[in-house]
């Protein structure tokens, strides 16, 4: 079992989702139980489903100097970085520590594969990519990390984590290691994922996509709604107003695309996260569930929450607001957990009509206000890759 870690302050954070750009739009959606999902108007070929689409990316090209990275995923990264003054916060950290002392750890599952898909639709007569899509960095998963490092003008280690839907939760764990080992003095973490054919038709091939807006933990749930999002956070040593308190990472060792039937991998990540935070389950006031609205995930996760947590904790899935943003889900749901700590707003599980009988009293359909001391966020990915995060309020240094 891991030993407790020192809190790390989260000195800035932001999220841009289908609810709109920045934290205010997200909080407004959560507080008023407003889903950001819409009928699929994105894919080149028709697919009956609902999506969490971010408006305005089509006309939001990145600056000319960064044209080699211009694609939907990096446009969303650019839009996301401009939310909530995040770029200014990084600039200030750069002035304090120096560019070489700021690391970057970003998560993604799609990265800019959408640009590769587009190139395949527009191959020239020699079977080559069209001229404007020939930049090699755009067709590799580190496209995201490379782009954001250039935008932020930071020179510490810059790496992309790609463990499917746990990617941008695991970035917090990696950031803690870089800070504790003295490799960096501040770490920008985050994640960006965008809508593309690969994920829409890929999840469809696994019969995991719902033709309706997703209904997490509903007795009649029938699959996920895919979304896109960008989110970022700035981590530094020492306790602040908002802190990362713990994390747990584990593997299911079970199956590539279905969770361990008893949730043993998820529970192991939960135990490690609580151990690092030095907290018991009774200290947690809000849980942001992975809650994809897939039959299996919700079944296994509901059972885990019911057996490990008391009845007073408020647990919810926010996939109905944003869609399942895959590689960005970890950072988006970390942002929602931080908003809960800051405002006391604990979101409900929007779209859901009737909870599955498997759910304990912890899982709530309606949003509520209360005092949130500690919040926990679950992220589980393909390959049986699990990550659980614990956040808490602290005293500003």
């Amino acid at each position, binding site marked *: 079992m891991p030993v407790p870690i020192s809190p790390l302050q989260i000195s800035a954070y932001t999220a841009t989702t289908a609810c709109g750009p920045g934290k205010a739009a997200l909080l407004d959606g959560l507080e008023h139980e407003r889903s950001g999902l819409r009928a699929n108007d994105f*894919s080149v070929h028709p697919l009956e489903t609902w999506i969490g689409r971010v408006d305005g990316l089509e006309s939001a090209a990145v600056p000319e100097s960064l044209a080699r990275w211009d694609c939907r995923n990096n446009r969303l990264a650019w839009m996301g970085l401009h939310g909530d003054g995040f770029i200014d916060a990084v600039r200030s950290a750069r002035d304090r520590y120096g560019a070489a002392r700021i690391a970057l750890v970003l998560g993604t599952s799609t990265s800019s594969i959408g640009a590769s898909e587009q190139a395949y639709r527009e191959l020239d007569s020699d079977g080559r990519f069209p001229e404007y899509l020939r930049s090699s960095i755009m067709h590799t998963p580190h496209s995201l990390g490379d782009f954001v490092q250039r935008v932020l003008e930071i020179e510490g280690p810059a790496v992309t984590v*790609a463990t*499917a839907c746990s990617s941008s939760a695991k970035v917090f764990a990696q950031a803690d*290691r870089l800070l504790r080992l003295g*490799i960096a003095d501040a770490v920008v973490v985050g994640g960006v994922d965008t809508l593309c054919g*690969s994920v829409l038709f*890929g999840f469809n091939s696994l019969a995991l996509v719902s033709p309706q807006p997703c209904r997490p933990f509903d007795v009649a749930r029938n699959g996920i709604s895919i979304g896109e999002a960008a989110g970022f956070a700035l981590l530094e040593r020492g306790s602040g107003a908002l802190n990362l308190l713990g994390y747990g990472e584990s*593997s299911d060792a*079970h199956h590539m695309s279905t969770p361990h039937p008893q949730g043993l991998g998820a529970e192991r990540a939960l135990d490690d996260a609580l151990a690092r935070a030095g907290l018991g389950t009774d200290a947690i006031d809000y849980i942001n569930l992975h809650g994809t609205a897939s039959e299996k995930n919700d079944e296994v996760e509901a059972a885990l929450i019911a057996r490990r947590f008391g009845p007073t904790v408020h647990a919810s899935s926010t996939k109905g607001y944003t869609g399942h943003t895959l590689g960005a889900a970890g950072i988006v749901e970390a942002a929602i957990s931080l908003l809960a700590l800051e405002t006391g707003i604990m979101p409900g599980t929007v779209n859901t009509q009737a909870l599955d009988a498997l759910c304990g009293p912890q899982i709530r359909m309606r949003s509520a206000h209360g005092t949130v001391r500690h919040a926990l966020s679950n992220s589980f990915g393909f390959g049986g890759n699990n990550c659980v995060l614990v956040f808490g309020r602290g005293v500003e240094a």
Partner: protein
Amino acid sequence: MSSGTMYLDGIACWSPTLVDWDSARAAFRGEAGLLDPPARRPAPELLAPTERRRAPDTVAIALEVAARAVAQAGRTPGELPSVFTSAHGDLAINDYMCATLVNEPMAISPTRFHNSVHNAAAGYWTIGTGCMQASTALTAFLHSFAHGLLEAISQASIEQRPILLVAYDIAACGALACVTASRGMLATALVLNPAPGANSLGTLTWTLQAGPAVPLQPVSAAARSLQENAIADCLPLLECIANPEGDVLLPLGDALALHIHWKAQHA
């Protein structure tokens, strides 16, 4: 700048022309040549027979080196957390996904889709070995090996326990090959231990170094023959470890590098 020491407990390497560490070590020292004709890809013995046949090349070569390095370290796979790193992931599946989406999106194979995740090799490793430890999958384009090594060193140092690092890339194919330059198959695995033990092969003393990095180019003909693979940033370190003692500089980016001093146990 940060620094520290790791013990190397296990090492493996696989390419069609260098199918294990002993032959790679000899070739990197200039004492042996390349396998001719080249070998076919290894069978991922850890997987169930149906999965073994359908496993992507990335999974087959990653599991081969992972199993060998862990065995050399005298460990069971279930006890080690792991860091998997690859510049591009499975380029053949990316080509398949993009090509199929053009005209037949409803024909996407569910198996190939779930194998398209960057952590497919990590997932199959943990499934095949029953390992429930933490596992990650990273990429940093042409510096993917160096960043995987840095994360493996970080985890081993912070948690004070040994860790498995696996690095691999395969050749680009289809239209993607006009923008992505990766040739052949190459995989390597290291078991790093923060503490010395009976299986220590030597020490890797690391230092983070600021400023523009001029990477050492591999010198042996064997290593140079693998240089067009996207995980080739591992080659200078492998070549160094093939010798009793030496230094390498692994760039982490334009302005940062990982300096490694290698000393074999009985050098």
